[in-house]
Each structure stands twice: as structure tokens, then as C-alpha cells.
């Protein structure tokens, strides 16, 4: 009697868990992961096999040919270097400026501080598409159209406010007494910052670098508007340019997508744990 009751209870519990967790979770995961699976599979198929029926769910035989075409023929080797250059420099600019801003906000009281912070917040509501025309004009007047430097400036400006706010949060969390103690022990302010703040700030630095890198790496609209020379295309613009033609090579297109997304996924795997924690740290404070 007692046994059947416990069995029935555990069956009910399993049923409940299945309905409330396992089945919807499986569906959500399928929706999330299948598109990624599909683009990878397509990238490894021979071009002739992609449209063949019945549809192959695994590439047979698998080939690297699409990656070779994307990299050497479609120009992804160039696009990759361009994207890496733009995103890399943007990361450096944003990191330095946001540490400066973060330090100023969290360690000093100054007239206009609230106004400045309001200004940072306001920027988050400026539509990017709104700036398309005026920024195009600005950089044309600066003789910087078709110049990757223009993209660096734009991406740095767009990424700066959010990361500066983020960074000021991280610096505020480091007790000021630590710096003061170091200064009492004879450090200059700069040396105290270098020796005390930087090691403790490492999570914030990593977060800023990753957010900025992903943002710059993925940006499309300004890359499209400001760059018209194929040799200067960034990855998203290059990927898009492959799709405008009538004779699309789907294998190479899929391979190009994989190449574009790979660095972001690697970075993301590295920081994903921190992402949820970092957000919740912010939520507690907010």
C-alpha cells in the first residue's frame, strides 16, 4: 500500500516536472540551438549536396571547401582582419575612456557630475539610425569616408556611455580606503591605482572589453553606409554583400557565417557565467 503510494507520488512528480520543465526546456533549446546546428552542417556540405533531396541532416562527405572559398575567394580573410582591427582599437579606446570616466564618477565630487551622468544615460535613447545621415556627412567633411578609422570613432562613441556606467559601478565597489592606505604608505595616486585598483578591477575590465568587442564586431549599418570599398568591408558588411547577388553560394555563405560568429562565441563561452552574475550584481544595487 505504502509502496504504491510513493510510486504514484513520484510518477506525479515526474509528470509535473516534465510538463513544467523538461518538455518546454527541450523545445526552447531546440529553437535556440537548431539554427546554429544547421548553419554549421550547411557549411560542411558540398555545394551540390545542399539543395539535394532528401535533405542531408549530416554532411556526407564533409568538406572544408566552403571555408576555403569564403576565406580566399569571397574575401573573408580581408573582412576578418578589418573587423579585428576596428573592434580591437575600439576596445582599447573604450576601455581607457571608460576607466577614466568611471574613476572620475566614483572617486570625485564635482560640479556638473549629475548633469554628466544624465548625459550618459540620455545617449542610450538616441536611435542609431537617426545618426546615419549626419555622421555620414561629418565623416565625408573630415575626409574619412571609406576609412576604417571613422568606424572606430563611431563604435567607440556608441559603446562608451554604457561601459562607462558599468565601469563606475565596478570602481565604486572597490573601497577607497585601499587606495588611501597605499598612498599613506608612500604610493603616488597613479601608482596606487596601478597596484591596487587594476588587479581588483579585472572583472570589470574583462566585461567592458567583451561587451565592446561584441558590439563593434556585430555592427552593420554604419559599416554599410560609410564603407563602399570591398577591400575595407567588415565581416557583417561582407556577409551581406554575398547575399545581394542572384547566384548565391550557400555553402560559402554558411561558412562565412561560421567564421563571423566564431570569435564571438569563443569570447561568450568565456564570460557567460559572469554575464548573469554581473547583471544580478547590478540588479541588487539598483
Amino acid at each position, binding site marked *: 500500500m505504502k509502496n504504491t503510494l510513493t510510486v504514484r507520488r513520484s510518477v506525479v512528480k515526474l509528470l509535473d516536472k516534465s510538463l513544467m520543465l523538461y518538455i518546454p526546456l527541450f523545445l526552447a533549446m531546440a529553437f535556440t540551438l537548431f539554427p*546554429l546546428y544547421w548553419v554549421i552542417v*550547411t557549411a560542411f556540405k558540398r555545394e551540390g549536396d545542399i539543395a539535394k533531396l532528401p535533405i542531408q541532416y549530416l554532411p556526407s562527405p564533409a568538406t572544408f571547401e566552403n571555408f576555403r572559398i569564403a576565406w580566399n575567394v569571397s574575401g573573408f580573410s580581408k573582412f576578418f582582419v578589418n573587423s579585428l582591427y576596428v573592434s580591437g582599437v575600439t576596445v582599447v579606446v573604450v576601455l581607457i575612456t571608460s576607466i577614466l570616466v568611471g574613476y*572620475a564618477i566614483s572617486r570625485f565630487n564635482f560640479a556638473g557630475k549629475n548633469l554628466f551622468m544624465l548625459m550618459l544615460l540620455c545617449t*542610450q535613447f538616441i536611435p542609431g539610425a537617426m545618426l*546615419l545621415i549626419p555622421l555620414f556627412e561629418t565623416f565625408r567633411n573630415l575626409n574619412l569616408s571609406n576609412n576604417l578609422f571613422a568606424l572606430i570613432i563611431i563604435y567607440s562613441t556608441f559603446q562608451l556611455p554604457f561601459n*562607462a556606467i558599468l565601469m563606475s559601478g565596478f570602481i565604486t565597489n572597490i573601497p577607497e580606503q585601499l587606495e588611501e592606505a597605499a598612498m599613506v604608505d608612500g604610493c603616488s595616486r597613479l601608482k596606487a591605482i596601478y597596484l591596487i585598483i587594476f588587479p581588483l578591477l579585472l572583472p570589470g575590465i574583462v566585461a567592458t572589453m567583451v561587451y565592446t568587442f561584441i558590439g563593434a564586431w556585430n555592427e*552593420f549599418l554604419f559599416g*554599410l553606409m560609410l564603407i563602399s570599398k570591398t577591400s575595407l568591408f567588415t565581416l557583417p558588411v561582407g556577409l551581406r554583400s554575398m547575399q545581394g547577388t542572384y547566384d548565391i553560394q550557400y555553402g560559402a555563405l554558411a561558412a562565412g557565417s561560421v567564421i563571423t560568429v566564431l570569435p564571438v562565441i569563443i569570447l561568450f563561452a568565456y564570460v557567460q557565467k559572469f554575464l548573469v552574475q554581473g*547583471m544580478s550584481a547590478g540588479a541588487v544595487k539598483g
Partner: protein
Amino acid sequence: MSKYDSSAIRQLGAFKKMKSRINWTPYILIAPAILLITGFLFYPVANVFYYSLQKFNPAKAYENGYIGFENFKTIFTNDDLFLTSLMVTFKWVTSEVVLQLIFGLGIALMLNQAFRFRGVFRAAAIIPWAISGVVTSTVWGLLFNEQMGIINDLLMKVGMIDRKIAWLAELNTVFPSIVTAELWRGIPFFTIAILAALQTIPNDLYESAVVDGAGRWKSFVHITLPFLKNTIVFTTLLRAVWEFNNVDLIFVMTNGTGGPVDMTTTLPMYIVKQAIYAQDFGYGSALTVVGFFILLLFAVLYLKLSRFGKEL
């Protein structure tokens, strides 16, 4: 500063110092940021307002010049595409924000439960957040492809459709198709934010609710939702602004047309088309100004009506 031993004296000292001379250090620290933001965000915004009063087309420079509110007059009296694009924008933003919120909330609630390999599932669930609009469009373009797309293949196999559908070319399928693709990339934003907020709800609240005989639904309505309110209001507002402006995905999935027959031309997509193809910078800027005020009005009303930051 630490050479004073009592903090009261120290504060007095700092106060005196501040009165006597301004400390320039913080201003020097924020100077680069101010330069970038005013030069490449605020100045261009001001420029948009200026351009909106001009006839301004780089390809027809001989016609350029001040025309007052002519552009706005055209927008409100003689531009059907403007009205259509507003409708499309409204449809686009509402369907994206509502659906992303519902699915994001659901997934966050699941991922907040305790089960094996939860960390792996959490990581997997938020991957699309990091993926660009262009890659998303490319990937979903492959899935939706009429000839070789997997969606047609699967739906034919289970008998839900009997002919291959050109998802991105047919009038009644194009909008749901791009909404789905954007959902894929958009849901994780809500999952991350809500998951983070869920972790701040003290567990004993639920325990005492159970003691009081509250079921799962009651706990959700009376504990979870009130706790999530500010997060939800803030994230939906941010997302609404973001989706309003989001053109990458629409641009690439519709091959830069916002078609078929402008079915997917949102207001920003219309602006982008003006900027890139028509090169009508004056008219495009006027459209931008209108869009800016619509967005501003929406944000203010939304925060007012939702009583953001106030207790329930």
C-alpha cells in the same frame, strides 16, 4: 588627505580646499568622453534637426538649400509610405517586445529551477544574444529558403503544408518570418535580465507562501511578478526603443528592400532607404526628427503609465 586623524576635520579640510580652488582632475578624466559624445552623438543629433529644414541631396547639390517646414508638410500630407511604415513599426515593436518578454520570462523561470547541468543550459539559452543581426538573418535565410530550406522540408514531411512556401517573398508570411528570426536573437536579453532579477528574490518569501497555502500560480502573481516589475518595465522600454531602431535584420532578410511591397518597411528602414538609395538626406532627416519625437513621447508616456520605480 589621511594625514588628518578625525574625519570631521578631514571633511572640513576638503570643503575648504574645494572652496578655495576647483579640482580639475575629474574634468580632465571625463574630457575625452565628453569630446566623443558631444562630437559624434549630440552634434549629429543637432545636425539632423538642421538638415530636416533643408533640401539636401548630395547628388543634386544645385537644388540644396533652406526650405522651412516643407519636408514635414510632405510627410504629413503627401506620403503614404510614412503612414504605412508607422503601422509596420508599431506591429514590429509590439510583436517583438511582447513575445520576447513572454518567452524570456518563461525560459528564465525554467532556468531558475534547480536541475542537473543547469549552467550548461543557461549558457546555451543565451548564446543568440551575442550573435549579430546579419548572421541571424543569414542563418534564418537558410532555414526559410524556399528550395532547400529545412522549414519547408519538415512542414511538408509532417503534412502541415502541401507546397513549398517562399516565406520571405509572400505577402502573408514575410512579416511572421522576420519576427521569428528576430525573436531568436531577442529572447535571451529578457532571459538574462529576468534571470538576474529572479536571483534577488528571497527564498523564504516562497516558503512562507507555501505555509499559507498559496499554490504555484498565486506565488507567481503575488511574489514573483511584483518583484520583477521594475526589471520588466525597464527592459521592455529599452527593448522597445531598440527594436524600433533595429534595421540590420530587416535590411538583410529582405535584401535591402523592406519588401515585398513595403510590408516590412519600418520607419527606420524607410530612413535607411532614403539615406542609402534615394540619397535624400533632407527628407530622411525630417523623417528621423518625426521618429525621434514619437520615440520620446512613447518613452515618457510609458514610464508615467507604468509608474516606474514606484511600489505596486
